[in-house]
């Protein structure tokens, strides 16, 4: 539409599209190496125990078994924040914790060997609830975490790393408020993002200290950095990425599995492939943190939030690698979503004897919004205010600011998202559908409809550093050197589009380097929504730098000044006298490549935004909640890949997104610590036959990011929806729901049709599910 772009914003198929639809794409799970062994993990059946004795003899005797390792056989590699969690420990802390590792010639033999390992345990009392875990006589998971409180703060974020939101004077704020409300909301369903390809790794150890690792996630370079610390800074690590069968954040940290594969390779001298089964994936790999918030909110009649004071409990399971980071970013994000001068919000991270929490799309902010937005809604309800208007009013505006994850105050220099919110409200028909608090939109027999709205925004679009090289070749082609795996967003093609646009080359003349940490510079990877601004900025700068060097060479040849040079499709020419033109090869000669370097420095002064409107239908007889329609609205600055963006935004439902408000949860038996639905039949997910209507309204107001004025928004699609659903169901029912997911039992309980309480829950568990 006259923007002059050839690729950016155009519906061009992804580079890997042909391979994906023909089955040629090799995910890590599809790969084999010569001489490869298979690894398996023996896991604890107890939530908390000391390993007294392990007898490996029988397992060793099985033909084809090459290694059996326990805590006694391995170096003291430790992960977690702080690094207190041993890769194999003498103590197990959840049902599924690793007890022994086996490498064998086939997967079947490795599997069989697990059963031949005899383990003697001393069983310890366990704790599964965060408030219980905080009690003085609660079982203690780590000596290093007295009271089961995980040390707050993230060293990587700097000395002032955000641990809480404390500013202004809350008492003064409450004094200024027209209403003060108080409540507790919990987002504790510990849903699993459940990417289809399970977590796994292939490792090859070469003595004395060289490790090559093939990984499946979105940040192959970062595994090298992380594992270097975990392995005592003594191991030389090279990582290879590749197509990743879904991550949604979760596989970013597969360090335990990677270490297991590395240890087995170290013990056998052969490459070892270690993949979790889907059951292990759901029972022993990371899930969302559980979150419970109790707070008081002060609000004025005009929707101004005057004070927020409360506690935020986060259950991280048996250890934390990133929960503190999620808290830090979440604490930043709340200030973006809810402008308030007086805060006293104090998080406490608790460890319990269940599977660990980890990274999931929404990174702390989704967990926080799910409790905080309903808490603020209580005040809106009391004042009779329209939540869409209040959320719009309180979302960060240019000139306002926030403390970000590093504890430093940043002034927001982006756009006002109000216009996008208005467009979304129009597309949804909010003005017609909103009837007031706790009032259904319509009633039809036993079916009641309700609407809700949520919002989310994240300054992570400019988070962390990226580096890239762009190398120009004399035949008029170029290669982007950036350590990237394709994990489903289509970004690997998008970065090439932006490089091609910058170099004015046809897209098929620009390619991407292999995702090898040895040939590529530092890359944090497309975590959160940072790809479009951060990674692309480094790539664009590298392309510009390469062109600058090429122009110098061309200018010499043509006898003009470098500033007079331009290029198109591999030709160099003078802007003033376009007749003066030579191909790249004539400027570069036969024996030269030209390489440009680009770096992106973190920038926290821009944020993205997503507002989601939902309409639900609740059957008051059965208690079932159906999602009828969803409108996601935002401004992307410039859409780089229209169809890819559509897919990412439709992704709001899955990967532990909106459906975590309706039916998605991991069911933990709180007596035994076993997960009851660790398979894809009992863990519920949305099918093709139950798709709501989705509309994505995305504006394109040029943003001050890079030359294409775009910012990333894909990741946050999941985040505003759950609290919107909670609001919609509460409105449909005429009473507040306080917990997710809103399964039929919770609806019927809220309507007084069944009794609540722990007994009922236990009975439901005995019947084989929570509903």
């Amino acid at each position: 539409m006259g923007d002059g772009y050839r690729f950016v914003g155009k519906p061009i198929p992804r580079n890997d599209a042909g391979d994906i639809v023909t089955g040629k794409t090799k995910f890590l799970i599809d790969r084999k190496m010569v001489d490869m062994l298979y690894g398996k993990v023996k896991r604890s059946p107890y939530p908390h125990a000391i390993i007294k004795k392990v007898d490996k003899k029988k397992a060793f005797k099985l033909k084809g078994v090459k290694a059996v390792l326990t805590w006694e056989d391995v170096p003291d590699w430790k992960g977690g924040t702080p690094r207190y969690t041993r890769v194999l420990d003498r103590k197990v802390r959840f049902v599924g914790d690793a007890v022994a590792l086996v490498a064998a010639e086939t997967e079947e033999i490795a599997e069989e060997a697990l059963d031949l390992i005899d383990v003697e345990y001393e069983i310890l009392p366990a704790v599964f609830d965060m408030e219980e875990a905080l009690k003085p006589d609660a079982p203690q998971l780590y000596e290093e975490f007295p009271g089961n409180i995980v040390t707050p703060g993230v060293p990587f974020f700097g000395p002032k790393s955000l641990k809480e939101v404390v500013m202004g004077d809350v008492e003064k704020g409450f004094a200024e408020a027209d209403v003060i409300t108080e409540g507790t909301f919990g987002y504790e369903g510990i849903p699993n993002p459940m990417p289809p390809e399970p977590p796994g790794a292939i490792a090859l150890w070469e003595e004395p200290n060289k490790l090559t690792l093939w990984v499946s996630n979105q940040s192959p370079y970062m595994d090298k950095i992380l594992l270097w610390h975990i392995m005592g800074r003594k191991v030389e690590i090279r990582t290879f990425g590749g197509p990743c069968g879904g991550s949604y954040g979760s596989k970013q940290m597969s360090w335990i599995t990677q270490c297991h594969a590395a240890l087995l390779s170290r013990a056998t001298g052969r490459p070892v492939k270690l993949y979790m089964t889907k059951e292990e994936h759901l029972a022993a790999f990371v899930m969302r943190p559980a979150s419970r918030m109790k707070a008081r909110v002060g609000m004025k009649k005009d929707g101004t939030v005057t004070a927020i004071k409360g506690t935020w409990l986060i259950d991280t399971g048996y250890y934390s690698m990133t929960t503190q980071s999620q808290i830090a970013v979440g604490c930043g994000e709340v200030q973006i979503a809810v402008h308030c001068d007086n805060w006293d919000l104090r998080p406490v991270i608790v460890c319990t004897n269940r599977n660990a929490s980890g990274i999931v799309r929404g990174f702390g902010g989704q967990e926080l919004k799910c409790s905080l937005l309903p808490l603020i809604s209580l005040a809106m309800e009391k004042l009779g205010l329209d939540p869409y208007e209040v959320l719009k009013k309180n979302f960060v505006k240019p000139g306002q600011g926030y403390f970000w994850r590093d504890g430093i105050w940043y002034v927001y220099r982006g756009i006002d998202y109000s216009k996008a919110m208005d467009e979304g409200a129009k597309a949804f028909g909010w003005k017609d559908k909103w009837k007031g608090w706790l009032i259904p939109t319509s009633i039809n027999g036993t079916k009641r409809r309700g609407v809700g709205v949520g919002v989310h925004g994240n300054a992570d679009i400019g988070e962390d550093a990226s580096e890239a090289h762009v190398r120009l070749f004399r035949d008029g082609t170029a290669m982007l050197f950036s350590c990237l795996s394709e994990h489903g967003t289509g970004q690997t093609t998008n970065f090439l589009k932006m490089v091609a646009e910058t170099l004015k080359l046809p897209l098929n003349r620009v390619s991407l380097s292999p995702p090898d940490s040895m040939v590529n510079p530092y890359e944090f990877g497309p975590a959160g929504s940072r790809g479009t601004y951060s990674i692309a900025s480094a790539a664009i700068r590298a392309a510009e730098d390469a062109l600058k060097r090429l122009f110098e060479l061309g200018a010499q040849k043509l006898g003009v000044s470098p500033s007079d040079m331009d290029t198109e499709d591999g030709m160099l020419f003078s802007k003033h006298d376009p007749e003066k033109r030579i191909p790249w090869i004539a400027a570069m000669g036969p024996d030269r490549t030209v390489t440009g370097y680009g770096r992106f420095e973190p920038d926290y002064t821009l944020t993205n935004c997503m507002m989601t409107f939902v309409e639900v239908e609740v059957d008051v007889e059965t208690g079932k909640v159906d999602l009828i329609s969803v409108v996601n609205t935002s401004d992307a600055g410039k859409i780089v890949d229209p169809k890819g963006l559509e897919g990412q935004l439709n992704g709001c439902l899955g990967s532990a997104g909106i459906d975590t408000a309706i039916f998605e949860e991991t069911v933990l038996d709180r007596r035994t610590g076993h997960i009851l639905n660790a398979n894809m039949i009992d863990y519920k997910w949305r099918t093709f036959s139950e798709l709501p209507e989705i509309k994505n309204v995305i504006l394109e107001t040029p943003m001050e990011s890079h030359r294409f004025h775009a910012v990333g928004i894909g990741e946050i699609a999941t985040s505003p929806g759950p609290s919107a659903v909670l609001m919609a169901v509460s409105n449909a029912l005429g009473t507040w729901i306080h917990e997710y997911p809103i399964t039929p039992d919770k609806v019927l309980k809220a309507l007084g049709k069944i009794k609540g309480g722990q007994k009922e829950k236990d009975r439901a568990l005995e019947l084989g599910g929570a509903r």
Partner: protein
Amino acid sequence: MEKKRKEGVRSGKKKKIKLSVNGIGYELEIGDKPGEVDYGHTLAHTLRETLNLTGTKVACDHGACGCCTVLMDGKAVLSCMTLTVECDGKNITTIEGLKDNKTGALDPIQQAFIEHSAFQCGYCTPGIIMSAKALLMENPSPSKEEIKEALSGNFCRCISNYQAIDAVITASNRGR
């Protein structure tokens, strides 16, 4: 040792499974050595591990997600729930066999999936395309509801479902 010999005498030689995959005939011996078919092997395992046809994906290995869908004599089956020993004499088509062998042209469904960007991570895509293929072979002009129904056993966590439905509609329109 003794036992093996006896079996050898009884059957003359090792039992074999004959099956055709993507038009190529295979004779696989039953046994537990590499390259052989064990009684416990699923079709998904044989395709991926023995025949190196890794286009067929496994996610749940449990009959829940449809990622492993292939065609058996033209009908969609879950290869993780099918034992290879049951496939004697069967014609199997996997995602690798959908292209026109002679011309190299993509199947219209594959083409439509590319045009609609009907995938994100792409892990579920082979299974969805094979389910769609079985549907269009049986019902060349399905309604949207029929498409949803036919794909209801296919998991897509990235939620490319909407674009996949559109792609199947495009492919069926072209087939008309």
